[in-house]
C-alpha cells in the first residue's frame, strides 16, 4: 500500500456518510496529500469513483481486503 498522509475510518457507516466524511477530511488537507479511507459499505466502491470524477480529486487505488473496502484519494 502506498503512503498516505491521513486516514479515515468509515467502517460501519452507510451512504452517504463515507463520502461526506471523506469530503470533510480532504477539506482539511493540502493539494497533493493522500487520504486513506476504510469503508464497509459495498456501495462506496462506485461512490468513491463517482466522487473522484466529479470533484477532480484522484482515486489512486480502490481495493477490497478482508471484507473491507480501501481507497486512496489524492487531493487535487
Amino acid at each position, binding site marked *: 500500500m502506498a503512503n498516505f498522509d491521513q486516514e479515515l475510518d468509515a467502517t*460501519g457507516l*452507510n*451512504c452517504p*456518510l463515507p*463520502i*461526506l466524511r471523506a469530503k470533510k477530511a480532504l477539506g482539511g488537507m493540502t493539494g497533493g496529500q493522500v487520504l486513506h479511507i476504510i469503508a*464497509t*459499505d459495498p456501495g462506496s466502491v462506485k461512490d468513491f469513483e463517482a*466522487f473522484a470524477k*466529479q470533484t477532480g480529486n484522484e482515486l489512486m487505488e480502490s481495493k477490497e481486503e478482508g471484507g473491507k473496502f480501501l481507497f486512496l484519494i489524492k487531493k487535487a
Partner: protein
Amino acid sequence: MSDEKKLAIIATKGTLDWAYPPFILASTAAALGYQVQIFFTFYGLQLLKRNLKLQVSPLGNPGMPMPMAMDKWFPVLGTAIPGMQSIMTMMMKSKMKAKGVASVEELRSLCQEAEVKMIACQMTVDLFDLNHKEFIDGIDYGGAATFFEFAGQSDISLYI
C-alpha cells in the same frame, strides 16, 4: 461562482422514511461541489422542526416490509392496528442504527454545515399555524417566487 452546478429540491413529505431523500441528496450534492437549495412545503415543514418527531406509517403502504409477515396475514387492517405506527417507527430507527444509516438530525446538520440553503414555505407555515420558533435557526422563509429564483437557473430540480 456561476460555473458551480446547482440542485433545487422541493421537500413535501413529513415522514421518517421520506425525510431521507432530500437530506441525503442535498448533502451529497454539496460534497460534490453543487450549490443546493431545498424548499420545504406542506408536510415537508416537519423536517425543519427543532425537535423532530418523524414517524413511518405502514398504513396505505403495501411496499413496507412488516414484522412476522403481518401484512400477509392481516392485509390492510394489520397496518391500522393502534400503536402499529410507533412500533414500525421504533423498528425502522433501530434497523437504521444497526446498519450505520445516519439519523435525520445528523444529515440535516451536515447539510447546514455544507451551506445547503433551506427555505420554509411561509404560506404553509401560516396555513398550519406554525411558529418560526418551532423551526431550526439559519433557515429562510419565502414563497414560490423565491424557489424559482434559484430553481430557474439550476441544473437539477427534484420534487420529493
